[in-house]
Structures are given as structure tokens and as C-alpha cells.
């Protein structure tokens, strides 16, 4: 294993992309300076980290890839990232999929604005400072892909830290569709800090689904940023299923007038899972719209966190922005935090948020039981219906069945084992 020291920086991964080279330098500097975050910091409230990145090491070389899993769907093009290194790239017609190190710097020139800041926290610093090869998916101006690019991000060497990086660029007037599967085995401890950034150009569309199917002892600290140009459109779906600690800290910067961000997510925690979502939706241009719809459930002793900030800058008039987070708490020991926030500097906007945390609905249970369903089946149906509203809105419906099965099986298993 390679420790996180300046000596271990992977020279092979150094790209000719000037802004990424800058960020690596900044990351190395910030990593020396920034401590591990604690729950005292607002963005880490409710989360206790019991490790230091400095004690972890990177895999010497990527391990053997995993066999296909339940979320493996057909893609127009594919790429596999194992232990932070891009190991497979299958190109697609009309889309450029490549290692960042091999990419034409011109194709990535416009992606600099969507970079996650290197000094966001110690995790981002480590990602830039010590991350290896990254993956670029680029849709040229006006191109429309006929199917999704599937990126399979895996951590497979137990005891290691991996720092995968994905850069998406949808040039103006293009349509790009990307599915990202995050996974690791249940056996073995893994730490992963995925970085995902996307630039959606003027009048371009990005359909993006991320599935966190990490193994049970994986800590995943995901960071994500999408920047939308004029009349750009983001449709993002997220499913939080696996991981011991699964965190997604994400930013959507709505920079172009007329742009729209649609985010639908669902998550289901069991055992002592912690699923942590930090959303920052920044409206920085007029006539922009955003909608976020997140549904989560927690059972056993699991916990979920949602904190969402919609920020509307003074110049962003005529904005519509909504945020909904609904949580089912299915056991006494489980808990859900839901903290939506608005920060509005403009004076002509429509904004709203809704947040609920509670048990299964007694009236629904009564109604279903009055039709002859026993309590287990009535509750099962209610949980299924709860998630169905989110699943129906996911951008890639080819993932609906395995995601539906994963969340419903979690609940049915808990029922069967008497944990509800």
C-alpha cells in the first residue's frame, strides 16, 4: 500500500490539463493543513468519523474487477474504475470516453468551472492530492447519444482508500446520459472518496443516475458538483442502498438563465448504516428552476441525514425552487435528521420546502388491513408505495426494478427476521 505522502503521488496520472494540475498542487497543500472534519462543523453535523485519512493507504495496483451485479445494465459505452484507477474504457459512438491523462486538454478546458474546490475539506484535498487516473466522458456540441454510458466504480482491495474521479462534459446543445454504479464487496473494509463533476453547456441536457451499492463495511465520502449553463437541464437520480457510512455532499450551480435542475433520490438504511446527504442548490441566474425530491427510510439502528440549502442570489430573480424530503423511521433505534434551508437574496422568487420524519401511517395500515391484508403485508405495501413515488421519477427507468427490489428486500428481510 502507498501512504498518503508527497512521495506517493502517482506521476503517471499527471495530466496535461492545467487546472487539474493546479488542483493537485492545491490538494497536496490543503491536505497538510486541514484536519479531519468533526461534527462541530455544520456540514458534518450528526456525523462522527472514527478514522484519519492519513492512516490509510492506496492500492499498489488495481485489484481484480467484480463480476456484474444487479444494477449492471446495458450501456452505449462503458468504463470501469477499480481502486481509483481507470481499468477499462469501451468507447461509444458520438461520445468520447477516456482516461483524463489521455484526454485532449481542449475537451476539458470548459470543465474547470465545475471543479470541486480542493480545500472543501480534507477528503477533497486527498482526492486531488493523491488521486490517480480519472475518467472523462465528453459529449460534443450538438451530439445526442442513443443510450447511457455506464461507469462501474469499484473498490476491491480490502483495507485501502480509493479516490476515483469522473469528469462529465456535455457541450452546448448535446444530450448526455450517464449511469454510475458504486460498489465494493461486503467482505473487507474499504474507504472511498469519489469525485464527480459535470459541466452542462448551454441548452444541453444531462441525465445522471448514481447508485451507491457499496458493501457493508465501506465508508464512502462522495463529493459531487454540477454546473448548468443557459437553458441547461439536469435530471439526476440517486439511490443510497449500501455502505456503512454513505455520504454525498453535492452542489448544483445553476449559472445560466433558464436552466433547470431536477433531482430525485431515495435511500434505505439498515443495521447501523449512516446515510448522509448534503445538498447545495445555488441559483445564480434568473428564470432558473430546481426541484429536489428525496425519500428515505431507516430501520434497525441506522441513521440518515439530509441537509439541503437552496441559495438564491440577488441577481437570480424569477426563480422557482422546491425541496422535499420525506423519511420513514421504521424502528425505535433508527433516526432521521431532515434539515431543509432557504437562503434567498432575490425578492421575486417562489421557493418552498417540505420535510417529514415519522413512522408508517396508521390510517394507511388500517385501510389496507380492512381489505384483508395482514399487518406485515399492509406495511410492506406501504413501504413499497412510499418509495414508488421516487422510483417513478428516476431518470433511468432501466434501473427501477433492481432499485425497487433492493429497498423492498431490505424491509421484507427485516420483517422476516422480526426486526420491525
Amino acid at each position, binding site marked *: 500500500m502507498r501512504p498518503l505522502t508527497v512521495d506517493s503521488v502517482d506521476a503517471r496520472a499527471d495530466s496535461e490539463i492545467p487546472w487539474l494540475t493546479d488542483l493537485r498542487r492545491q490538494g497536496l497543500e490543503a491536505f497538510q493543513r486541514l484536519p479531519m472534519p468533526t461534527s462541530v462543523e455544520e456540514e458534518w453535523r450528526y456525523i462522527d468519523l472514527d478514522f484519519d485519512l492519513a492512516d490509510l493507504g492506496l492500492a499498489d495496483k488495481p485489484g481484480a474487477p467484480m463480476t456484474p451485479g444487479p444494477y449492471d445494465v446495458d450501456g452505449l459505452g462503458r468504463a470501469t474504475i477499480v481502486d481509483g484507477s481507470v481499468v477499462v474504457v469501451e468507447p461509444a459512438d458520438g461520445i468520447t470516453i477516456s482516461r483524463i491523462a489521455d484526454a485532449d486538454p481542449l475537451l476539458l478546458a470548459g470543465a474547470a468551472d465545475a471543479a470541486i474546490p480542493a480545500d472543501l475539506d480534507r477528503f477533497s484535498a486527498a482526492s486531488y492530492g493523491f488521486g490517480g487516473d480519472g475518467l472523462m466522458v465528453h459529449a460534443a456540441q450538438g451530439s445526442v447519444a442513443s443510450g447511457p454510458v455506464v461507469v462501474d466504480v469499484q473498490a476491491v482491495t480490502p483495507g485501502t482508500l480509493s479516490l476515483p474521479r469522473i469528469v462529465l462534459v456535455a457541450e452546448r446543445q448535446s444530450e448526455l446520459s450517464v449511469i454510475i454504479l458504486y460498489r465494493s464487496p461486503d467482505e473487507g473494509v474499504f474507504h472511498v472518496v469519489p469525485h464527480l463533476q459535470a459541466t452542462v453547456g448551454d441548452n444541453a441536457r444531462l441525465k445522471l443516475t448514481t447508485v451507491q451499492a457499496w458493501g457493508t463495511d465501506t465508508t464512502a465520502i462522495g463529493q459531487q458538483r454540477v454546473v448548468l449553463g443557459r437553458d441547461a437541464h439536469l435530471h439526476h437520480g440517486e439511490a443510497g442502498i449500501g455502505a456503512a457510512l454513505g455520504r454525498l455532499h453535492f452542489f448544483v450551480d445553476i449559472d445560466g438563465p433558464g436552466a433547470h435542475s431536477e433531482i430525485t433520490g431515495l435511500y434505505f438504511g439498515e443495521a447501523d448504516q449512516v446515510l448522509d446527504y448534503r445538498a447545495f442548490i445555488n441559483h445564480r441566474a434568473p428564470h432558473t428552476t430546481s426541484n429536489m425530491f428525496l425519500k428515505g427510510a431507516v430501520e434497525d439502528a441506522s441513521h440518515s441525514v439530509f441537509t439541503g440549502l437552496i441559495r438564491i442570489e440577488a441577481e437570480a430573480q424569477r426563480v422557482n425552487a422546491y425541496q422535499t424530503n420525506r423519511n420513514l423511521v421504521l424502528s425505535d433505534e433508527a433516526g432521521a435528521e431532515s434539515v431543509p434551508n432557504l437562503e434567498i437574496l432575490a425578492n421575486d422568487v417562489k421557493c418552498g420546502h417540505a420535510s417529514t420524519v415519522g413512522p408508517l401511517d396508521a390510517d394507511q395500515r388500517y385501510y389496507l388491513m*380492512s381489505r384483508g391484508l395482514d399487518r406485515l*403485508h399492509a406495511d410492506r405495501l406501504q413501504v413499497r408505495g412510499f418509495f414508488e413515488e421516487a422510483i417513478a421519477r428516476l431518470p433511468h427507468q432501466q434501473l427501477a426494478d433492481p432499485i425497487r427490489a433492493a429497498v423492498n428486500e431490505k424491509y421484507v428481510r427485516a420483517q422476516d427476521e422480526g426486526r420491525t
Partner: protein
Amino acid sequence: MSLALEVRNLRASIGSIEILRGLDLEVGFGELHVLMGPNGSGKSTLCHALMGKPGYSTTGSALVAGRELLGEDVETRARMGLSEAFQYPTEIPGITLRDLFEELADQRDDGDAIRARVSEAADRLDATRFLDRPVNGGLSGGEKKRSEIFQLAVLAPSVAVLDEIDSGLDVDAVREVAEAVERMRGPDIGVLLITHYNRILQYLKPDRVHVMVAGAIVQSGGPELAEELEERGYTDLVAEFGGPTPDAGEDDFLAGL
């Protein structure tokens, strides 16, 4: 031969508030009975007490086809042959009626019979369009009532209790619902229809009409009783037998008594 529904000295309360105060009622198989009464007389409480809604405590006896309901949970009462069409059917987001029936068929030994009744009743009641819509979601008032009656047709109960199945409907919808109720009748079922108004009775031929005031049945008779009530109202009866059950304040669970 047992009765479809036989209620003896039924008392029901929520907390310390007694709402049903010794109610007796008999509905035979093949019969349609109508229960009328002013607001707050306990009509919906009777429905929930029979169905076993959590929060109600009950004493007395309520037999469906000769078997005691009280003390059983909601699902068991449904299996024993009691079905209700609710005044305010609960919306089940994300679940279609087809999902509900499929889950029920999966769970039950007679699943195939349930599936067969779903398609038969959907055809007969022209209710196919409800199958793939969320349960009670986005339905108009009349559609909700028709969806409830459709469900009852699939469940094929011994006793159907229809709680204000005609309220909030326009004239055409009332007639449609009444026709659906008439089609529901048969030798293997007793029907108890609870209503405020005798409007629906223009289209139905009840065997008996009962008047409920202050948690008990105070008068029973033939269909002519409904017409009498229409003329003279409930005022005299309320004065004689007591007013609405006490107002328990703002508690939500008392809504729809």
C-alpha cells in the same frame, strides 16, 4: 341459519368518551338495511368499531355470520367476512389497486379466486380503469365511492357496511352508486348502508330503515320511515334521545364521527 350481522349491546368509546351506548342491530343475509341519523350520532364510529380501528374500545357483541368480531384485529375481521366502504377512503400513494389485490392474492390461500373476482368485478362494474391508478389517489368523490364498491365486490364479504357512500355526490353519481349497491345484493350478503339523506333511497329498496341518535338505534321501520324522517327531520328525536355525542375538542381522531 345465522344472520349476516348481529350486533348486541355494542358500546364503543374513544378514551373516556362513550360514543356507542348499547347498540342492537340485525341484518339478515339477502337484506339491505339503511341506517340514518344526524351528525354526531355515532354512525361512523359504528363502522370503525365493527372494523376494529385502533383507538376504539368496545364491549358487547358483534357477530358476522355467527362469528364474534370483537377482540379480533382488523385483518381477521375482514377475513371473517366484514367489508366496509369508507366515507373518506385513505389514499395509498404509489400503490395501485392492482398492487393491493395482487398482494392480497399472494398472501391468501384463495388467491386464484381473488384474481378471478378482480377481472369479473372490473368488467361487471366497469371499473377496470381503477386498477392501474393509485389507491384513492387523484380520484373524484364519485370515483372514490365506486372504487370502494369495486373493492367490496372483489372481497365478496358476508356483510358490507357502506358509510355515507352517497355523500358529496351529484345526482348522476348517486344513481350510479345506488345501482352498484343493488348489484352487490344477493343471498350471501347482508348490506348496511349508512346515510344522511334519503336521496339515494329513491334508487334502492331497503328491507329496513333504522334511526340512530346519541349512539343507539332509537327507531326502526320499513322504507316509509326514511320518508317520514325527510319530512320531520331529526330534531324531535334528538330532543327525546339526546344530542350529538359530546364534543371532545380538537382531537383529529374524532373527525368523521
